[in-house]
């Protein structure tokens, strides 16, 4: 079992924390019908990271995060500009912005591909959860060993801080978020500043996506922004319960997905390891499928259609 602590404990924890924080924000994205902003932002993290590497020449985490953050900011500004000034419909504006920036990222990557950078498209999409090994984690006792703890992969601390930030953000702005999501005009009239809260939400989405991206790849981020919250919406009609359910479902996807990917093939006597990020995303989709089929609140309410 010492294997588990060394190889799996940290990736599993990171996957769980990442999934929980993405799902938390996802509740509001789904309610605002802005789910795809998470998709757009996770696509542009790659170009940001490539650009920061080309400029600074290092793969230091801080430089990469800043690069990804700048790329996310540019994308959001671009989407708004295209939408407002060009009068282009929101989803099309999003499609224009993130594909163009992603294309730029791939071009930069391939252009300098020969220089042997440890960066590639697949890596960015799939993540490398499995490589987050805790070398000093020789057993459960290492959890109490200060020296061993110092050797924990830095991604763990990073996603934890971001998760904390997400929680603080939601606690502080909970009322403004709910009012702005439900009725933006009323929110403006009572000075709940929906535009500012909207922007902050997008910034939080970007921060979360970037921290998660580096640890777990972008595909898990997109799935977690949407699937748990969407499933939870079909399970309850109460916002508080929806958020709680989204957390439960995200946790289930993360833990079960990781275990299935790592140990599942072994159960069938196959010698292969599957992508944990991909498996977690798949599982969250299966949960959504179940919610769509059996969720007690899967249908719209009658009067709401009118």
């Amino acid at each position: 079992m010492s294997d588990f602590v060394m190889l799996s404990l940290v990736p599993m924890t990171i996957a769980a924390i990442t999934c929980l924080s993405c799902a938390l924000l996802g509740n509001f994205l789904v309610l605002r019908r802005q789910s795809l902003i998470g998709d757009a932002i996770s696509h542009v993290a790659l170009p940001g990271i490539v650009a920061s590497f080309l400029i600074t020449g290092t793969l230091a985490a801080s430089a990469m995060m800043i690069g990804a953050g700048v790329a996310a900011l540019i994308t959001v500004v671009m989407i708004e500009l295209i939408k407002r000034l060009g009068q282009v419909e929101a989803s099309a504006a999003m499609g224009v912005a993130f594909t163009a920036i992603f294309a730029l990222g791939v071009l930069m990557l391939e252009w300098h591909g020969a220089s042997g950078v440890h960066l590639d498209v697949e890596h960015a999409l799939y993540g490398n959860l499995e490589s987050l090994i805790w070398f000093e984690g020789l057993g459960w006792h290492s959890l109490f060993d200060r020296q061993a703890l110092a050797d924990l992969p830095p991604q763990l601390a990073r996603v934890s801080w971001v998760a904390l930030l997400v929680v603080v953000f939601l606690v502080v702005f909970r009322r403004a978020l709910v009012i702005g999501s439900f009725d933006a005009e009323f929110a403006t009239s009572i000075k709940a500043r929906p535009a500012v809260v909207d922007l902050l939400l997008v910034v939080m989405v970007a921060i979360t996506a970037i921290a998660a991206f580096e640890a777990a790849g972008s595909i898990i981020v997109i799935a977690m922004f949407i699937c748990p919250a969407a499933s939870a919406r079909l399970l309850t009609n109460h916002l508080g319960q929806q958020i709680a359910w989204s957390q439960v479902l995200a946790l289930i996807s993360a833990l079960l997905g990781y275990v299935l990917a790592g140990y599942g093939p072994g159960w069938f006597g196959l010698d292969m390891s599957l992508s944990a990020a991909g498996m977690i995303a798949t599982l969250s989709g299966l949960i959504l499928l179940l919610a769509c089929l059996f969720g007690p609140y899967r249908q719209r309410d009658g009067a709401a259609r009118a």
Partner: protein
Amino acid sequence: MNAALDPEIAVSPLAVHGLTVSYGRKPAVYSVDFVTPPGSMTAIIGPNGAGKSTLLKAALGITRRLSGDVRVFGKPYAEQSRHVAYVPQRSSVDWDFPATVLDVVMMGLYRDLRWWQLTRRRHREQAMQSLSRVGMEAFAERQIGQLSGGQQQRVFLARALVQDAELMILDEPFAGVDAATEKAIVEVLKSLKARGKTLLCVHHDLATVRDYFDHVLLINVRRVAAGPVHQAFSSAALQEAYGGRLSDVQLARIICPAAHLTQRA
């Protein structure tokens, strides 16, 4: 316009001057001046696309204005928003939102609750009280998606009531509601007026203007007429606002509904 100079504006719950709003290159509201008399119940009237809702939204800072000045009790809206309660059009929100009736009414208490404060029983009681004023206390725990149009409108009104503001601005409160709800809403509005509150209301049913309101503002992009109902709500002004689209029979009925009723009797 200077608040210090003009006493009428200093006491008016909402005074707009030279307000122009445009979507693209076409003005939706052009250079409208209007001073809401305190304690009045004013209807904003005009044909479809006349800029009635736009005027209100621009006054409340929801829509950006191209030019003009807005004062609430003589000061800019941003400083005075506490004194204004706004009831948007029912159709402007997604009623599939996961919230109960009580949740929506509590939104009206946003300003009273800082982020570290929890919602207490006192707040819940306040919300229940305003729900009972619109006859919806039995629906407090009901999902908002399950309400009828009239019930939705009552909930919106309750949310504004809980704000306890001096000026209440309503956008088409009677659109698509049942007769009982219309009557209930009018009762609530009249009781507010009796307590000295001011009401400003986009209204589309010309036949009920005289029954419900004491002041009118007729607009069709520009201001056509404004003043007490018995002065400003004239057939000439209506013809101008509606661009001659009202027949004489219609006009007679609107201007003098009592005569019409006696005729029928």
